[in-house]
């Protein structure tokens, strides 16, 4: 299907299905009527939002459009192709992200721009690729579409970062499709620091080949209402998917994380560690679905979701969903909602550390565990800083 047909089909799908409601099982706890009932414009304006480039290779999107002036991606390893998705169309676009979801179909129908990254066979990129999405336009919908393809035996690190101007009300609707070929490796980060009154939705679709590795870390701090749909298909033996994430929510923020890990073939691993710290009247939803298909013997799937509530008004719905059709599998899941460990606090105290500092250390540690598997030093340092700043202002 060419892009035009794809867009038309998606527009038709969107028209037919509309936005989900809380009657849909997958949207039970997340009411998107505030998005559905708003008329968003698509008028383009330049953005004046500060950001810090985390790499020499950086693509900056201003209110949904690539800014060549702010970007820099000239010096690339041989064969690596990076640019605007509008210029570098690939027939695989739209093959992973299925149009059934209203957010995906409206994105496919409307996307205004996005990043295209193709790393050819055998090329291991040391320099991370920083994708920056700046937003400050009032009342607009920003449909961003990214495509990442890592060839056989290649390796690439991509940091997607969404930054919004404080108090701007807009709707980010992003879709990222990731293809990891056999023996390939994609180290992916998503940092969401949208405006506190924005809506942020993203669907991340990943397809992994034989012995492919996909590592994903999401950090969510922004948006008043939002959701990450993270979907991985382990389609080749020996594949490994790591999906870790952290959501730090306050005020009346509502954020939903839906993960779907599809073990289609034998001998794959998937690890998911998600943690949340909730203050004020924040509300988090976590749903981790793991499907182990009939042939997917020797699957090793671990999932855990832990939440720390800093205030009585905060709320969490956590729902593990395991569907296992193979018999030789190792599958574990666990979910907790709680307060800080008093024994650990006492232990710190017996070493001279006062309870206020101890609380701060333990809260940071709780969050920081999610970053244990972060391979990219730049991303780690940056994210740790964000977590630190957030905690400075939280009620601990």
């Amino acid at each position, binding site marked *: 299907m060419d892009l035009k047909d794809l867009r038309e089909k998606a527009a038709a799908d969107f028209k037919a299905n509309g936005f989900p409601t809380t009657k849909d099982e997958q949207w039970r706890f997340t009411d998107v009527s505030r998005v559905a009932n708003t008329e968003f414009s698509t008028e383009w304006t330049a953005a004046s939002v500060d950001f810090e480039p985390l790499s020499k290779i950086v693509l900056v999107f201003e209110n949904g459009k690539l800014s060549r002036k702010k970007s820099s991606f000239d010096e690339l390893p041989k064969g690596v192709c990076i640019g605007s998705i509008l210029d570098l169309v690939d027939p695989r676009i739209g093959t992973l992200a299925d149009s059934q979801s209203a957010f995906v179909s409206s994105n496919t129908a409307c996307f205004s721009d996005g990043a295209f990254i193709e790393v050819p066979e055998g090329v291991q990129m040391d320099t991370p690729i920083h994708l920056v999405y700046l937003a400050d336009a009032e009342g607009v919908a920003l449909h961003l579409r990214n495509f990442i393809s890592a060839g056989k035996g290649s390796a690439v690190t991509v940091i997607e970062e969404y930054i919004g101007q404080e108090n701007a009300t807009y709707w980010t609707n992003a879709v990222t499709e990731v293809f990891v070929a056999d023996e390939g490796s994609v180290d992916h980060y998503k940092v969401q620091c949208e405006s506190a009154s924005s809506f942020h939705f993203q669907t991340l679709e990943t397809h992994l080949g034989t012995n492919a590795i996909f590592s994903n870390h999401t950090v969510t701090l922004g948006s008043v209402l939002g959701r990450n749909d993270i979907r991985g298909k382990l389609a080749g033996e020996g594949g490994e998917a790591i999906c870790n994430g952290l959501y730090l929510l306050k005020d009346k923020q509502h954020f939903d994380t839906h993960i779907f890990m599809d073990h289609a073939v034998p001998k794959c691993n998937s690890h998911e560690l998600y943690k949340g710290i909730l203050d004020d009247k924040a509300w988090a939803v976590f749903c981790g679905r793991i499907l182990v298909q009939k042939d997917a013997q020797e699957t090793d799937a671990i999932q855990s979701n832990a939440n720390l509530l800093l205030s009585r008004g905060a709320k969490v719905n956590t729902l593990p969903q395991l569907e296992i059709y193979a018999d030789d599998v190792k599958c574990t899941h666990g979910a907790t909602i709680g307060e800080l460990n008093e024994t650990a606090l006492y232990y*710190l105290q*017996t*070493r001279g550390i006062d309870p206020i500092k101890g609380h701060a250390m333990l809260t940071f540690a709780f969050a920081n565990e999610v970053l*244990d598997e972060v391979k990219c030093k730049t991303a780690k340092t940056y994210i740790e800083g964000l977590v630190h700043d957030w905690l400075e202002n939280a009620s601990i």
Partner: protein
Amino acid sequence: MALIEIKDLHASVADKPILKGINLTIKPGEVHAIMGPNGSGKSTLSNVLAGNEAYVKTAGQVLFDGKDIDDLAAHERACAGMFLAFQYPVEIAGISNMYFLKAAVNAVRKYQGKDQLDAMEFLDLIEEKKKVVQIRDDLLARAVNSGFSGGEKKRNEIFQMAMLEPKLGILDETDSGLDIDALRVVADGVNALRSPDRGFLVITHYQRLLDYIVPDFVHVLVDGQIVKSGGKELALSLEDEGYASWVEEKGA
């Protein structure tokens, strides 16, 4: 002056009286051993001294360095020079041992009005203390006690004690879970820390530890009371005879 003076100490846990009148005085430079059957209140005593709020002192008095410690919270007692090596050290995910040690050392130094150690000075201190208690670098880099073996945790406790240089070290069954070589390392570490102005309270079930860390006094704790005190030879006779006679005597 005594380092610590415990007078007629009574304490409860979850409203259950556990300590029923403990009297014990440790002078600087002395090593006291406490032995006693399971559940007799040894860990309770160490927790009451360390300031665990789950343990409630119901009567008596504890003077540390001549001052009543009633109003001191656990971290203030630590800063004042009390150190408890836990029977069950706590695992803390997400905080590296190094970071934890630096926070602890600097918290104690701050309380004592000393300058904070910067990164270099801290690393020098680590190297210096590694000579007292050998500890693998990977254990220092890992999260506090997380996934440490039983013996590694105990070694880490003693390493922390070496780093914090307390006036009083309370060792709650530090020997349990240690293999023979590790026991020697830990005991050598404690012996290296023995000094005329430092005291130790060593809780153990086994004479073996006391072969290495030779105590000045041995006390037998049964049902929340010290029923017998003596020199190091008391531990030997306990090894032979057990606690049966004391337990019976108390029961009778």
